């Protein structure tokens, strides 16, 4: 049921050639740009695992820094783990900033890079504290079966988070013309128009982006200001808008939650299993191990997560084409993702599996062409 899609069965995509779609220089620039980011990602994840493995091995010693009892000490160890993760990623973030600046993808300074996300880091500290309170309290009561009770709690929290996400970003209402487009497209997709907002991100990036967030009464589409800075035509922005509305009309937020719910139980079970040698999650000493297991599980499930995400993005692309009925604008938009935002149009398969939550640029262009052929 979760794999259902509005993309027609048996849709045949034309096989396009990168070299014929993009100019050689633009193609090479995008490929070089993304190659570095991939290496940066791989290196950062290797370092992350090494750091967390070391922490799992020796991190329990930090319990001496706590006077907070079992659960409080567990919280402290969880937060220290996050702190180490943050520290271990600093060089890679700086390298990424250097690369982005070199390719004119960002004006952000290095100090800004280090400190701009401290509020987000604070939120992560709070989240992990809350998660550990839940897990360790349940593990105190049900030492071997806590995971059965914890999974529904985490699903509830994820649902709550998805519901309130639209309120976590400072945004401005979009202009009247875009609002009118949103109403028109929402009507075409047979949904109530969600709120349409613009987030000013010009201080830290030039990359274009948009996203759909919330569900029920909190549904919202947020366009980044970089999408409206004149580099994209009106029709291209409309394509983005229709795409994001496609996520809402396809209930993709709720579908994502359903996927999460599907994996929450086995995930918590694996953590419970892996931490038994440290006495289980009722003991603070198990917290560093649980962090390692959690990160390894997340990394291991990346191909699946990205496959699910690409499936939804494909559907949203298709719905956008059906809504705007303008393959030229869609194609123009996707091409600009490569020429302006330096997205590699045809990344290697391993990169797609690990890193890409969207179909490749070439696939999206092929998709637009397939729609054009089919709609004739």
């Amino acid at each position, binding site marked *: 049921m979760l794999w259902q899609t509005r993309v027609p069965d048996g849709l045949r995509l034309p096989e396009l050639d990168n070299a014929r779609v993009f100019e050689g220089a633009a193609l090479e620039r995008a490929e070089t740009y993304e190659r570095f980011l991939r290496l940066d990602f791989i290196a950062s994840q290797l370092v992350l695992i090494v750091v967390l493995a070391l922490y799992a091995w020796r991190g329990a010693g930090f319990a001496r820094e706590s006077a907070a009892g079992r659960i409080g000490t567990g*919280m402290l160890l969880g937060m*220290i783990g996050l702190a180490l993760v943050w520290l271990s990623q600093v060089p890679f973030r700086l390298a990424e900033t250097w690369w982005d600046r070199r390719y004119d993808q960002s004006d952000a300074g290095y100090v800004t890079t280090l400190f701009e996300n401290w509020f987000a*880091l604070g939120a992560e500290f709070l989240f992990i504290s809350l998660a550990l309170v839940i897990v360790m309290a349940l593990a105190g009561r049900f030492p071997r079966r806590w995971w059965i009770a914890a999974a529904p709690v985490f699903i509830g929290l994820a649902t709550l988070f998805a519901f309130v996400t639209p309120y976590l970003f400072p945004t401005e209402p979009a202009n009247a013309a875009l609002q009118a487009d949103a109403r028109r497209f929402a009507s075409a997709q047979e949904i109530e128009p969600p709120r349409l907002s613009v987030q000013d991100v010009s201080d830290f990036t030039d990359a274009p982006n948009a996203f759909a967030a919330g569900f029920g009464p909190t549904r919202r589409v947020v366009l980044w200001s970089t999408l409206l800075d004149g580099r994209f035509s009106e029709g291209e922005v409309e394509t983005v808008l229709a795409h994001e509305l496609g996520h809402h009309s396809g209930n993709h937020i709720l579908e994502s939650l359903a996927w999460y719910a599907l994996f929450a139980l086995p995930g918590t079970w694996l953590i419970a299993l892996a931490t038994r040698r440290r006495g289980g999650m009722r003991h603070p000493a198990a917290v560093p191990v649980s962090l390692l297991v959690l990160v390894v599980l997340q990394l291991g499930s990346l191909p699946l997560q990205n496959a699910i995400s690409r499936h939804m993005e494909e559907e949203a692309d298709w719905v956008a084409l059906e809504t705007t009925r303008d393959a030229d604008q869609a194609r123009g938009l996707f091409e600009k993702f490569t020429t302006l935002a330096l997205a590699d149009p045809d990344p290697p398969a391993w990169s797609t599996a690990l890193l890409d939550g969207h179909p490749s640029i070439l696939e999206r262009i092929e998709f637009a062409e397939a729609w054009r052929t089919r709609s004739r």
Partner: protein
Amino acid sequence: MDAPVRLVVTDDLRRSRLTVFFRLLLALPHFFWIVLWTIVVVPAAIICWFAALATGRPPTGLHRFLSAYIRYGAHLAAYLSLAANPYPGFTGEPGYPIDVELPEAAPQPRWKTALRLVLALPALLLAAVVGSGSIGGGGGGRGSGADESWGGFLFSGGGLLVVCAFLGWFATLALGRMPSGLRDLAAYGVGYSAQTSAYLLLVTDRYPSSDPDAAGPRWSLPPHAIGVEVDDDGRRSRLTVFFRLLLALPHFVWLTLWSVAAVLAALVNGIYTLVRGRSAAPLHRFLAAYVRYSAHVTAFATLVGNRFPGFTGAPGYAVDISIGAAERQSRWVTLFRTILVIPAFLVSGGLSAALAVVAFLGWFAALATGRMPEGLRRLGAIAVRYLAQTSAYWLIVTDDYPYASPALRAADEPIEPAAELHGEAAA
């Protein structure tokens, strides 16, 4: 090791209401005088700096001149903040009721002399909050001309002295005496400013110690329902220091939630105390735990304590608050508690600013050395104790008024050895 700059307090707390009422106007000649003196001191200090660099010790004549200036500044600050009563002389002669003893000229390491202005910055920052906020320790609390003429370019404020002077003015006019806690706190501020000035002006190469017991009389607390117990070895984990505020976030959230409940409980407790003349035992326990917890979190967040505190306010933390059982409380004091607590809130504001500076400076020091400087830690513990006393008073846990003296213990308790008395030099 004895501190070279020592605060001497012989004040008897008695004040003349008339001179207190007109204190600022009476001090006007001193304002002019200290401006003139400061104009001379600036080039004198520069000459002294070159001479000390060249010869390895400040010239005796200049040293004596700068010492007199520091003493004069301390006298004036004490007079303005009502820490002392007599009209001070204009020459900085020893013998004033709030006085500083300064060392004779002695050899000083050249590297310390060369870097003096930079090294003095942390002490100047702290002096701006706890002291008079001026180079000579004079008059910053009232925004004197001298303050703005030189010291003002580096810092402004004199927060605690201003608060002491402001509250002391009303109290003295009413009672004819300066409250001893306020006087002690003001005197401590004057003493720390004098230490800082002496360090900056090359009178000594000993770094100022913010430990109230290090360079002055032994301050002590009167019997009080709320006390502080410090059992901390000064060691700090650099990792938890670096992320201290983030690590404290769950506690901030919990404390906020608990605060809402505590205010509601205090309301009920206030009504109960008005009727029965003492707190309800369960509410007393609940509010006492809140006061302790809030002190633990404050100590942890500001690096006064090291270990991650528990969430229940249970006793046993390294910087702990002792709270006695519920006792009888005056109904009048309970009825007007919200008004009576306002002066304590003002002092708390000044001490909170000091605590923020303690945390800021301590953060760098602890990252560099793995230890919290002893003086900063003790000053922090004093601030935590006062904040807890204020909180307990406001929440009707006790009717003992918060005591502002920079003391950690009662008079009959043995003084704790200052293992790292001069640890702040490392900061």
